[in-house]
Each structure stands twice: as structure tokens, then as C-alpha cells.
């Protein structure tokens, strides 16, 4: 379609008037104290004062158990998989042995088995997140329900948050995640069209499946964990997470740093543990 100059000016003029009208509607909404997020919440959406996780590693037995949780997350969130490039890998949830998950707590008399026992690690959604504090653009921020979010459209890729996070939970897109691996296969095997892919040069991490919570679903890792990952409201004394925390001994990663992580680990294990 081609238009001449006169037509173009007409359309441009009309859109300007309409644009101004649009602005006044927005202003009237602002006066009413409405925010975009409050416009139409899904009634099925899950809400909490402070979301948190309990990870019971005694319920994670085989390699398959860990892989199922990680794959569920990475597949639906279009996390690129680098086969041979560990330096540039992107990961939201993965396994780490006890001695690496809780450095400084292992000791010489601990059984080899326990030292090597794998834990699932992901963003702790800290109550006082160091990453949020340092971000120069508020690209990473804490929601009212405690989820530490990442706005991949605002992130400038300075990686201050990666330096600040004491849990190594954040990944940077050093290479184009929509691109191909060294062997020519796409980094994202099967794209989930309902979740955005990222562009190069931004930081990403676990977002506690905010998109699933808003339609009433549990986080993907919890859903497939066979009860090893329990998700719930830490501020609600009757929630399942609080009941577990009240009855079992739980530990958190690096609590001494004061970031107040929201993942509680139940070690459990064998009778002699």
C-alpha cells in the first residue's frame, strides 16, 4: 500500500489527537490509584505475602529426580542448553553436592556419601536480596509477594547482580540464546511459545514461575518433584511450608550474610544421618 504526503499528514494528525486522548484516559486512571497489575487479576491466581520453598533432599534419590526438576524448568522457560560450553552456560535450577551448596559446613569426619549428596539449588528469592540492592536500573526487583524478578527488557547487562548474589543463582547471556550451539543444533531445542526467549547480553534467573502462579499453577519444579519441593506462603502459619519448617530441622544457604534466603532445606536422609 502506498500513500501520498497529504494522506500521511492526515493520518499523523489524527493519531496525534487520538494519542492525546489516550494520555488523558491514562491520567484519569492514575488519579483513581489503579496499577496495571491490578486491572484484571486471574481469580485462580495464587497469592502470598512471602513465597518460599522447602526442598526435602531425602525425597530426591536418583539422578532422574534432579534432572526431571531442572528439565521441567528449563524447557518451559526456554533456557538455552550449551553442550560443551560450561563457561557460558545459562541455568536456573541445578544440582550441587552438599559441600558446594553449604561451603564451610563440611568436615573431615563427614561420610563421603553425605558430602557428595546432591542438593537442588536455584534463586533463593531472598527477603533482603543483594542483587536488587546493587542493580543500577531496577531491572531486578522484589515483588510484594517476595519473588525476586528480572526485567530482561530493562537489564543493561552490567552484571553487578552476578557479583553481588552470594548464591551464584544468576546467568548472563554471553552468547545469543536464540542461536545455535557449536554443533549447529539450536540452543533452545523446542521453544515454548507462551514464554519469551531472551536476547543476548542480559542477565536471567529463576523467577519462581510467576507466570504459572498467576494462573493458579505451582512452580514447574515443585509440580514434578514428587513432593521434594514444596512451595507456599512463609508468612502463613498454616501453609505446608511452615508446617514442615515447624516440625523438621531445616537449613538455609549462607544465612550469616543476612540476605534471608527463602529456600529451606530438609536434610532428612537415612536413620543415622
Amino acid at each position, binding site marked *: 500500500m502506498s500513500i501520498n504526503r497529504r494522506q500521511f499528514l492526515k493520518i499523523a494528525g489524527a493519531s496525534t489527537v487520538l494519542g492525546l486522548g489516550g494520555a488523558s484516559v491514562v491520567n484519569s486512571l492514575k488519579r483513581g490509584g489503579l496499577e496495571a497489575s491490578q486491572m484484571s487479576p486471574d481469580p485462580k491466581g495464587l497469592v502470598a505475602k512471602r513465597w518460599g520453598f522447602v526442598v526435602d533432599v531425602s525425597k530426591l534419590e536418583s539422578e532422574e529426580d534432579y534432572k526431571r526438576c531442572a528439565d521441567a524448568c528449563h524447557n518451559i522457560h526456554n533456557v538455552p542448553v550449551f553442550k560443551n560450553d560450561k563457561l557460558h552456560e545459562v541455568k536456573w535450577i541445578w544440582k550441587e553436592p552438599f559441600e558446594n551448596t553449604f561451603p564451610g559446613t563440611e568436615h573431615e569426619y563427614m561420610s563421603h556419601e553425605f558430602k557428595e549428596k546432591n542438593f537442588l539449588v536455584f534463586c533463593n528469592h531472598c527477603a533482603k536480596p543483594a542483587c536488587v540492592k546493587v542493580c*543500577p*536500573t531496577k531491572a531486578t526487583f522484589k515483588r510484594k509477594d517476595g519473588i525476586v524478578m528480572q526485567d530482561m527488557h*530493562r537489564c543493561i547487562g*552490567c552484571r*553487578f547482580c552476578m557479583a553481588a*548474589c552470594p548464591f551464584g543463582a544468576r546467568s*548472563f547471556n*554471553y552468547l545469543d540464546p536464540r542461536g545455535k550451539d557449536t554443533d549447529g543444533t539450536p540452543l533452545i531445542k523446542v521453544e515454548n511459545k507462551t514464554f519469551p526467549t531472551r536476547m543476548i547480553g542480559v542477565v536471567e534467573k529463576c523467577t519462581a514461575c510467576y507466570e504459572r502462579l498467576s494462573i493458579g499453577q505451582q512452580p514447574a519444579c515443585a509440580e514434578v518433584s514428587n513432593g521434594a519441593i514444596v512451595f507456599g506462603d512463609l508468612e502463613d502459619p498454616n501453609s505446608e511450608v511452615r508446617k514442615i519448617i515447624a516440625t523438621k530441622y531445616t537449613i538455609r544457604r549462607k544465612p550469616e550474610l543476612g540476605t534471608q534466603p527463602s529456600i529451606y532445606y530438609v536434610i532428612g536422609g537415612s536413620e543415622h544421618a
Partner: protein
Amino acid sequence: MLEKALIGSKRYWIWIFVLLGIIGVGFIAYLQQWKYGLGVTGLSRDVSWGFYIAQFTFLVGVAASAVMLVIPYYLHDYKKFGKIVILGEFLAISAVTMCILFIFVDMGQPMRIMNVVLHPTPGSVMFWDSVVLSGYLFINLIVGWTTLGADRKSVPPPAWVKPLIYLSIPWAVSIHTVTAFLYAGIPGRHLWLTAIMAARFLASAFAAGPALLILLVMFVRKVSKLDAGTEAIQSLAKIVTYAMIANVFFFLLEVFTATYSGIPGHAHPLKYLFFGLDGHTALVPWMWTATVLAFLGLGLLIFPATRQNEGILPIALVSVFVAAWIDKGMGLVIGGFIPNMFERVTEYTPTATELAITVGVYAVGLLVLTVLYKIAIGVREDTAGEAEHH
């Protein structure tokens, strides 16, 4: 005054074109990084800051060191620095320019740099660092240009510039303090989590910056009629000496706390830097080179006989400068990431592309410095000529 930079000898123009050539190579390397992303560097998930941020950190110190001339000259009326205070201010402009470029080339999404201004975040130290750095650049541009302009007309600088000069003193301290706070406020990185970081940064800056400045002053004396005089050089050399003593002392304080307390997390990064960790030893030779150079430089500076010998003095200054560069430009930033948050060691080596970009940025800094110094020298040679006529 800019026209002074357009008239020069054949050697001047060769130097300018050599710099432009290096900048061109760096720019092509940057285009490659632009296309493929920071994956072309040696950076990784574990060592997420490297050479760029380290150079930035080091050069903030060089920029701040101009204050070591401004304080004696403007606060203590130490006239001997009169001829070279402008060289300090222009060095600061060149250094801050490089700082800004190093931040820019380190960004994953450089086109979004204005987000820092659009979404100002006073809780972020990086926000404040951008504020103080750009402020420092403007202060030095205005002060340097105005005082030199007044000098050309052989009149005293206008009264309004005095408050700016005084402001530049705490401002210089602020740029390096805020830069230290980028590191010193982060939980979980033991090498950085130390209250003495800002003090150490300033000491290292006031050693390395003036050391570079003396070398520049000596070079300027060789190629032009602008002679700062022996006394000015010796005074600056004493400043370098005291600052380097403080720098080494502060570093040893870190070593004491980390090793005597015996807390593993505190000792690990230092162990990695000086002895290697889990068989990884990439930085060990560098750190020992820095150690040897630091003590060699100090030794030559402390004894008056060697310090006053202008054949030996440059060796001492180069030693101090290189030692401080290795300490901050390699050890401090990289050491903070090793071991990682899971007590594992991932080492970092800059790639050729990364080095080409780094050298390119340094060439931009040198070009800015060359042009500014050419102007300053031109003006000073003119006024000196006039003085002889009268």
C-alpha cells in the same frame, strides 16, 4: 586553543596516526564483540567481570590522583606545581574518558546505557559511581580549560572557578571511594568485603597516578620547552613514596586479617592469587611480579640518593605503576570471583579480542591526553616566550 593541537612536528603526527590505527583495530574488535556478544571475551558465569572492569577500577585511581597536585597548589599555595597542575587535570580527563569507555564496552546491552539515568536508583552504588565520574569529568574540563585560557591571556583565572577547584578535591576522593564501595559492600565475596578497601584504593591511586604523571612530566620536558623543574618532580616523588608505603601497608593488613584469623573464606582468594588454589595458578606469577616490583620501587624511592637520581627515578616509578596496575588491574577484580560461590575455581584469561578492545580504549585515552597536553604545552610555551620578551 584547540588550534594548538593541529600544528605539530612530523613525529607528533606519526604518533597521532599510530594511535588512530590502534583505535581502529580496537574498534573492529569491538564490532566483533557487538555482533557475537561478550562471549568473545574470557568472561564466564563464574568470573563475570574481568579485564574491562579491572582497567576501569585502576583508571579511576589515576583520575583521582590529580588531587595530589591540586591540594598542594591551591590549598597550600605550593607554587612549584604551578606549571604542572594543568597536566594533572588533563591526565584526569583522559583517565575518566577511558573509565567511561571501559564501562561501555563491558555492558551486555550498551544501547540501554541511558536506563541508568531514566531509572535512577539511589540504592545502587553503580548509579552513584556514574554520577561522581561524569561530575568529575565536567569539573576537570571546566577547571582545566578555564585556567589554561586565563593563562594564555596572562590574567588570573576568573573568581568563579575557585569554588569548582575546591570542589574538585573532595570530588576526587569521592570517585575512588564510591568505586571501592562497588566492591566493599557486597556480601559473600571475601576478598572485597573489607572496610579498608576505599583507603587502599586511594593509597594505590595516589602512588600510581603521580608516578605516571612524573614520567609524563619528564617526557614533556624532553620534547618541549615546558620544564616543571626538579623540585616539583622531587615533591611529587615524595608523594608517590608515602602513598606507596601506605598502599603496601594496607595490603599487608589484609593479609594479616585473612591469614591470622584463619577463616577459610577470607584466606582462599589470597591463597589463589599468591600460591594457586586446587592446582589453578594463572595469576601467581603476576602477583609475585607485582610484589617484587612494589618493594623494588619502594626501596628506590625511600632512599634519597636513588630517588634524586633522575636516571634511577623512572625505574622506581615504572615499578610502582606496574605493581599497582597488576594489583588492581588483574588481582583485585579477578581474585574476588575465585573461588566461586560454590567454592570451585573457574579461571579467567582475557582473549585476543578482549585485549585488542582494551588496548584500543587505552589508545583513545592516550589520544585525548596527547591532544590536551599539546594544547597545554603550546599555551605554556607561548606565555614563557612573552615573559622573556618583557
